[in-house]
């Protein structure tokens, strides 16, 4: 029982990271109708920026976070202008290829600038964590869960209770109609890319102390997050969160009870099971109704 609680905590922690990246997928998918295959690279770039600011330059952690998130917002804006905007009137295929190209570009630029050595980013808090009963609560995992919960709450408030949030929803549901009402569609999509890049960046900053900071981390996280969005039902915000958390828990339990070397495989086994038995995902119906 103790082990189960411990694994659950760890699983939710790592699942929160998948959920954040999955949210970025879903938001861009809904706003621009394309899957952004560079979403994972946002996390990777942010982790490397943290290493540069906090480790190499030795700047304070909080300042490094602010600079990194600022950099991610800028990257999101440039990404929109360079990768999506020129192709916005085309079908989804050229845009998807464009995001794959951007993903390769970001990974290899980082490789060229920083070399192939994995880096280490120290955790935010000095303390390792504390025991609650039999369960050891690692401080970094606690932070991941708390920040994810806060972001999900913020996002819910933003989309459901602000006029800009409503305009973003309208844009994602029918761009032409949104334009006819005077909603600045290009601006709304820009905002979505900036926010998604920042979300991916936050995920990268949070997960970096848990994993090694490496060129490959983006692809690994993105694949898990992509699986999470499919399990949740593509395009559904709640589905992305539930899918991400579920995936984190499943792979943690799988590693503990079945096989550690196959840890990364569990996500894809679950993905395949969903694609065969329930391709619309857990929350899929509502997406169909929106179409």
């Amino acid at each position, binding site marked *: 029982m103790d082990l189960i609680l411990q694994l659950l905590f760890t699983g939710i922690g790592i699942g929160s990271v998948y959920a954040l990246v999955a949210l970025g997928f879903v938001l861009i998918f809904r706003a621009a109708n394309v899957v952004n295959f560079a979403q994972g690279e946002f996390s990777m770039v942010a982790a490397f920026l943290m290493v540069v600011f906090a480790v190499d330059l030795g700047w304070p952690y909080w300042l490094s976070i602010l600079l990194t998130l600022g950099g991610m917002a800028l990257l999101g804006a440039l990404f929109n202008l360079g990768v999506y905007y020129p192709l916005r009137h085309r079908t989804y295929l050229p845009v998807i290829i464009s995001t794959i190209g951007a993903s390769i570009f970001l990974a290899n630029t980082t490789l060229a600038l920083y070399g192939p050595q994995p880096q280490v980013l120290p955790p935010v808090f000095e303390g390792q964590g504390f025991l609650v009963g039999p369960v050891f609560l690692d401080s970094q995992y606690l932070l991941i869960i708390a920040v994810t919960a806060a972001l999900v709450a913020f996002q819910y408030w933003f989309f459901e209770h602000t006029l800009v949030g*409503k305009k973003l929803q309208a844009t994602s549901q*029918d761009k032409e109609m949104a334009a*006819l009402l*005077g*909603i600045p569609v290009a601006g709304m999509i820009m905002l979505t890319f900036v926010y998604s890049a920042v979300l991916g960046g936050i995920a990268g900053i949070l997960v970096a102390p848990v994993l090694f900071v490496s060129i490959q981390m983006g692809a690994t996280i993105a694949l898990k997050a992509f699986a999470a969005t499919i399990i949740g039902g593509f395009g559904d915000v709640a589905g992305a969160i539930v899918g991400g958390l579920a995936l984190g828990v499943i792979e943690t339990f799988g590693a503990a009870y079945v096989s550690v070397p196959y840890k990364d495989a569990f996500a894809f086994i679950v993905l395949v099971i969903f694609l065969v038995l329930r391709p619309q995902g857990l929350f899929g119906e509502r997406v169909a109704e929106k179409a």
Partner: protein
Amino acid sequence: MPLLEIRDLSVRYGEIEAVRGVSFAVEPGEVVTLLGSNGAGKSTTLKAISGLVRPAGGDILFEGQSLLGLKPEAIVRRGLAHVPEGRRVFPGLTVRENIALGASNRSGLSKRVLRDEVEGMFELFPDIRRFGDALGWTLSGGQLQMVALARGLMAKPRILLLDEPSLGLAPVIVQAVFAIIAEVRRRGTTVLLVEQNARMGLSVADRGYVLETGRLVLSGAPETLWADDDIRAAYLGGRAKVAAEG
């Protein structure tokens, strides 16, 4: 000066010339109906006016100023609201939210004013008041048309472009929709109406234009159009029907 003037408008979709040299005008306070069968170029004309498609030639003047090259967002800010074919109510937003977004072209509205104006729309459209918090996709066709009209009016337009408001609606709902159009007109909003249902379209109109395969073939007061045998046969429900009613 006409409120809206279309001069020699042409629109192409690739090789197909959907609108060919169409000219007409809408005076302030008028209701003008564009009639014609499927594919006559009615909807395309409206889309060109609201900026959704780019004309191949000609000019579109609103209050004497050309709208060519402006994006839809900019055009609606000038006071032209387009309620497109198929209602296009946002399926994942509530009726209240849909109507409120109709004011997106007007900047600096306080939340309170916006809320009051949405409530005001329910005075004009009492049938949809009780669906205020229902999501768009749960509504019937007639209710969606009411929401789309209310949303269009929230723009406080100088001219309202209505594309086929009667399409797919039961006759009793069509009557209700046209009663509202008459009320909109009574309140001083100019209306450019596109209809296949010529009988209803002309019932509220000051003038009508008939489009045929992208060209204007006839124009005039509703009585004049009614009197034209060929037009009656082609667009107004056929000779037999008119004779039977007459």
